[in-house]
């Protein structure tokens, strides 16, 4: 039982990172933009948050965790939205190919983040690894009296605030896409931009906003990873990139539905960490276990295309640029 609880808690922490990435990407993809730059954007969010907190803690005489939290949160959202803006400008205004632009954004974001993550401390004249302990503690703060409620407390109340924010954002995105007029317009843009254009929807504005807002949300995944998952440090081992692609997989697995992404994210977490709780696995077979999330994603992708049910298809114009003149 204790083992199960600890599996579930680590699955939730893991799932939260990719849930942010996926919710942002769902909003982006609903506008018809297939942004393969999600890993890059998560890198940007992570490093911007970390750098902001780092400079704040460096210059403040007595750093306050809450201030560091606000500063880094804003920096992360701004940097990742900026990454989305680069993508949006190139693909929407300059009509560049979406896949290639997205992959370039991933290379760029990973490079920028690892460059600063690896050498920020040295550039600022410090020694050793970058660390923002005070801010990270604020991110990881929970209510002790609730978390102390035995197993229930551990399972539901032992996380930093961003784990809950992810759920709220996913539910809000779900409402937005299914119930609000703006959200329905956005989906129309993603399905058939020409028709949406004819109906008086400003396709360009919708695509720009969806991509930038989506990127801002995706970037929070990187922030959560840097501040909570690895406790306010940086590692250049490329984990964020793997998580970013997992977020893209999650979008497919959840069939472009933010609410479904919530439990799917935790399921990915369980699949990913399951090997830790099965005794007698060799190191080789652990690697096979880590394949599971991708295998189930392919199965879902194939099943969706076979069933052809209208609710679970990708947005119809996904990956295609829209030129009004070339209808």
């Amino acid at each position, binding site marked *: 039982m204790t083992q199960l609880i600890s599996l579930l808690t680590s699955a939730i922490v893991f799932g939260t990172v990719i849930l942010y990435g996926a919710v942002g990407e769902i909003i982006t993809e609903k506008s018809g933009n*297939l942004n*393969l730059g999600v890993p890059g954007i998560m890198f940007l969010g992570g490093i911007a948050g970390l750098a902001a907190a780092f400079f704040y803690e460096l210059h403040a005489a007595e750093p306050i965790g809450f201030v560091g939290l606000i500063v880094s949160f804003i920096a992360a959202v701004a940097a990742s939205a900026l990454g989305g803006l*680069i993508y949006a400008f*190139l693909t929407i*205004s*300059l*009509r*560049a*190919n979406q*896949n*290639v*632009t997205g*992959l*370039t*954004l*991933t*290379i*760029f*974001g*990973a*490079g*920028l*983040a*690892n*460059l600063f993550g*690896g*050498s920020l401390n*040295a*550039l600022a004249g410090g020694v050793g690894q970058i660390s923002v302990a005070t801010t990270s503690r604020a991110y990881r703060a929970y209510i002790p009296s609730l978390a102390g409620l035995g197993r229930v407390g551990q399972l539901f109340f032992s996380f930093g605030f961003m784990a809950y924010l992810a759920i709220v954002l996913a539910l809000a995105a779900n409402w937005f896409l299914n119930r609000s007029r703006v959200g329905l317009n956005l989906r129309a843009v993603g399905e058939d931009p020409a028709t949406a254009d004819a109906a008086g929807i400003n396709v360009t504005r919708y695509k720009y906003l969806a991509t930038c807002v989506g990127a801002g949300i995706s970037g929070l995944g990187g922030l959560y990873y840097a501040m909570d998952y690895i406790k306010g440090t940086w590692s*250049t081992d490329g984990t964020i990139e*793997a998580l970013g*692609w997992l977020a*893209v*997989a999650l979008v*497919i697995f959840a069939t472009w539905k933010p609410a479904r992404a919530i439990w799917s994210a935790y399921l990915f977490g369980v699949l990913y960490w399951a090997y830790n709780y099965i005794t007698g696995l*060799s*190191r*080789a*077979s*652990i*690697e*096979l276990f*880590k*394949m599971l999330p*991708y*295998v189930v*994603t*392919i199965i879902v*992708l*194939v099943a969706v*295309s*076979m069933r052809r049910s209208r609710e679970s298809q*990708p947005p119809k114009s*996904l*990956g295609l640029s829209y030129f009004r*003149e*070339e209808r």
Partner: protein
Amino acid sequence: MTKHEPFIHIARRDGLAWWRAWLIRLAAAVLALLVSALFIYSLTKLNPVKVYAAMWEGAFGTPRRAWITARDASILLCIGVGLAPAFMMRFWNVGAEGQVLMGGCATAAVLIYCGRSLPTAALLGIGLVVSLAAGALWGVVPALFKAKWNTNETLFTLMMNYIAIQLTCFLVAKWENPKGSNSVGIINQQTQAGWFPAIAGKQYLLNVIIVLAVAVGMYLYLKYTKQGYEISVVGESENTARYAGISVRRVLIRTMAISGAVCGLSGFIAVAGASHTISTSTAGGRGFTAIIVAWMAKFNTFVMILIALLLVFLEKGAIQIASQFHLNDYASNVVEGIILFFLLGSEFFIQYTVRFRSHKNKKEVAPS
């Protein structure tokens, strides 16, 4: 109806003289280098000219460095060449990373299991065949589903990468040498069995020759054969292809088998001809970079040579700057990203003209 002319007016160009198109690309590259220089300067306060000189030194400074640059560029080029037919068919094969790894794993398996019992020529022959087969298999699976159920190939091939990566990790753990190192080490280090032989004393000459042969072959295949023509028709319009009696399904599967096989060949070259080991860095993101190479070259294999060289030059150069000026070598990815952003954007100005609303025009329109 409209009260005024829009501020900017965009129109498709009818076709631009090739030298003007290249002038625009060159301008974009220069602009990108300026922005990168600004970035490097703001970070290190170093003279950017000196930095670029150091980059040149790092990539071509000694014959050995130049050969390593050529070796790496040829592998990148090989992957790009493999992707060209798929992209020409408008099939988004973003699974090169996995196809390369599978080719590499197949080669490594041959070198490890048969290394003692077979001569090098046989090892290379068998390695070539199995790596082609492994790459083709990895490419054909998404194509089959695309042909039968129209499953989204971008997402499918993307996921196949990670299955290949985990499979590689599994094999590395299985083959690790020495035990506990979590790496395969140099395969057949003493006997050099199954390694590419040096030609005229040049260790990597064979790599370059093979890749150039494949590049020329692919150019001819796409441009002058019936199958190449079928690929371009399917890419232009599937309905046209069907009307012309081309079996879209067959072209799809055949082309992806070829595309995957050439990517598998890159894995073969990377293992038997370059690193003589296998790990996830055998592909190391080059499968993704090659997508950009293939796309930017508009499937022209000769332009790919240029772009592949440019990217590898940046990479090697940045590693040099990093060690010389105490940065880490991710700087190369940043510069690479900036240059690619500019080149991607420049394509717009090649395909479209932009006219701003002029004052005079406005006066003429106003009375109506």
